[in-house]
């Protein structure tokens, strides 16, 4: 690990710890959504970026994760036609089961995920969105129907991730409510998800996945079981989706079926394209960009041309954000093949090259990494 990587990790870690002490609740909420989106996008990037399999149905796995968690964790409620089912399991167990459930859902789709490739799979996964919407509106005892149902807060070793007015938690003069607590949970989950995906990508499986993407037949000839890998990556990426769904449910505190529609799935695809295909960092950058864009546009809507305040005639902030990220997808593919991550790497290389060049006469005897070969 190079020195700059360590430095960057330290800066990011420090920022993650400090942020909840300074930002207000609404920014924290958006930050949490960005974290959840980042987890989902990492999973999708494993599938689409690294293996070259398009999925337009990822919102379905988010829904499975979210509603799975709610169902496993909630106590059943009586109420005639509006009765809600539930298993009342301990919340951490419910979260783990929800992620596994998303994996099982992905596994059930694997006969198709293993055989189809690229954009074909993209169309086939469209089915998941429609089937998901159908299931969610019909399985009212699980999902609560159109209005959704409340999400029980996570409780880990007696520590509740929710507002506790009767016993407020104050750290360094900052009251720690649900969002501040969830922030740290989200950060840890994201870190774990990112490290795991990086391990997958850098190891043997990652090379196999990239070979499948670049040349399916070559991969097969070299002994990579192509179908099994495709199915496996699909399952893994749906589990990432499930985890993102659990986190989104915890932040929202209410799960609504309509949220998990086609638009959400398209937003995830936009994230990985904008951030950079095939890498963990790219997925995270793209997720932050796409999730924070509406927020930024709303915040500064009075200062920006063409965007109107909510409730007025014209382009609202949410629509402007959608149009912007749609355009960003097109622009990135046309002009920035590596996405934002590629842009950052290029800039760093350029700056890195310029500085040693200027300093070269002084240390001409010590080889730099560039001149060593």
């Amino acid at each position, binding site marked *: 690990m190079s020195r700059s990587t360590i430095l960057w990790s330290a800066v990011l870690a420090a920022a993650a710890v400090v942020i909840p002490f300074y930002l207000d609740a609404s920014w924290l909420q958006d930050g949490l959504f960005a974290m959840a989106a980042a987890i989902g996008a990492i999973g999708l990037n494993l599938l689409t970026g690294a293996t070259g399999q398009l999925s337009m149905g990822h919102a379905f796995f988010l829904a499975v994760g979210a509603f799975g968690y709610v169902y496993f964790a909630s106590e059943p409620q009586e109420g005639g036609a509006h009765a809600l089912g539930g298993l009342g399991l301990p919340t951490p167990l419910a979260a783990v089961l929800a992620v596994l459930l998303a994996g099982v859902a992905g596994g059930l789709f694997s006969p198709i995920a293993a055989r189809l490739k690229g954009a074909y799979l993209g169309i086939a996964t*469209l089915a998941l969105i*429609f089937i998901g919407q159908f299931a969610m509106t*019909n399985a009212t005892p699980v999902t609560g129907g159109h209005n959704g149902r409340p999400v029980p807060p996570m409780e880990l070793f007696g520590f509740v991730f929710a507002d506790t007015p009767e016993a407020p938690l104050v750290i360094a003069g900052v009251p720690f409510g649900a969002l501040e607590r969830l922030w740290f949970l989200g950060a840890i989950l994201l870190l774990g998800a990112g490290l795991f995906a990086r391990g997958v990508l850098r190891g043997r499986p990652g090379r196999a996945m990239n070979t499948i993407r670049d040349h399916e*037949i070559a991969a097969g000839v070299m002994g990579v079981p192509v179908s099994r890998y495709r199915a496996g990556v699909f399952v893994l990426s749906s589990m990432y989706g499930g985890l993102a769904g659990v986190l989104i449910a915890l932040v929202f505190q209410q799960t609504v079926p309509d949220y998990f529609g086609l638009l959400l799935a398209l937003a995830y*695809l936009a994230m990985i394209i904008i951030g950079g295909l095939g890498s963990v960092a790219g997925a995270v950058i793209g997720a932050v960009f796409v999730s924070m864009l509406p927020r930024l546009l709303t915040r500064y809507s009075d200062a920006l041309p063409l965007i109107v305040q909510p409730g007025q005639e014209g*382009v609202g902030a949410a629509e402007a954000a959608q149009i912007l990220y749609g355009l960003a997808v097109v622009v990135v*593919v*046309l002009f920035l093949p590596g996405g934002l991550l590629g842009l950052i790497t290029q800039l760093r290389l350029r700056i890195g090259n310029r500085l040693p060049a200027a300093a070269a006469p002084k240390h001409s005897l010590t080889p730099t990494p560039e001149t060593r070969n």
Partner: protein
Amino acid sequence: MTTFLELLVNGISIGAVYALIALGFVIIFKATEVVNFAHASLLLVGGFIVAKTHESLGFWLALLLGLAGAAALGALIEFAVIRRANVVSHSILAIVTIGVDIVLTTELTRQIGTEVLALGDPWGSEVLHIGAVNIPLARIAALVTASLVIALFLLAFKYTNWGIAMRATAEDSETAALMGVRRGRVSMGAWAVAGALAALAALFMCIFPTPGLDRTVTATAMKAFPAAILGGLDSTTGALAGGLIIGVTESLVGGYQSELVFLGRGLGDVAPFLVMIIILLIRPAGLFGTRELARV
């Protein structure tokens, strides 16, 4: 029995409309190897132009304008985006079209808002009675027009220079280019034709018995995707068969919904996708798609 016949004719008519969309989708795929996810927005654009102009121009002129507008937009997407994108993988081109789709659909649904726009078609809500079977005139018009257009297209595809150039490009684009086929023109033509077909489909999707053009039309148009893929993405015959299968399935499942209520509400909307999954399980390349063979 009469209900069955009514549903069947309705299904075939809707299927013919899906076939129009799927055909455009397949043409684009054959000519440029791009899976065009922006197809639904091309459709929306066509329908929107007709809805906005039919009062001042009259229906037929508005329809022409809608066809031309959607065709121009298709050509523009090809010229401005697809041609410029310098990528290795065709999945990435598919994602670009998703970007285009997000932009177009967001803007158009914003323009439409919560309104339901009429398209001013001459068929109105008249119903044709044949024996005991009642069929809306608009559905007959859809069936006849779609069949005519499809037949015309297939003939052109087979016999005109344009069609031959297109098929040659689809077969082997480099050789075709060496033989003097202008690749750029062929792919732009494919996108324009697909746009016009989509606009025509938009018309028949938004007239009686559906209330009109509203923001849910893109969701309906999504059903043409399974139509294209279950027939086989590279087969025009497949697009027709797929369209009919999807149309009839949807119509029958929707019509007998009361008997199928134990399966849940809104089954008609999911049925096309379920059929697609079943067919893909048995034949991953679709019914008429060429199975991919590779030589190493």
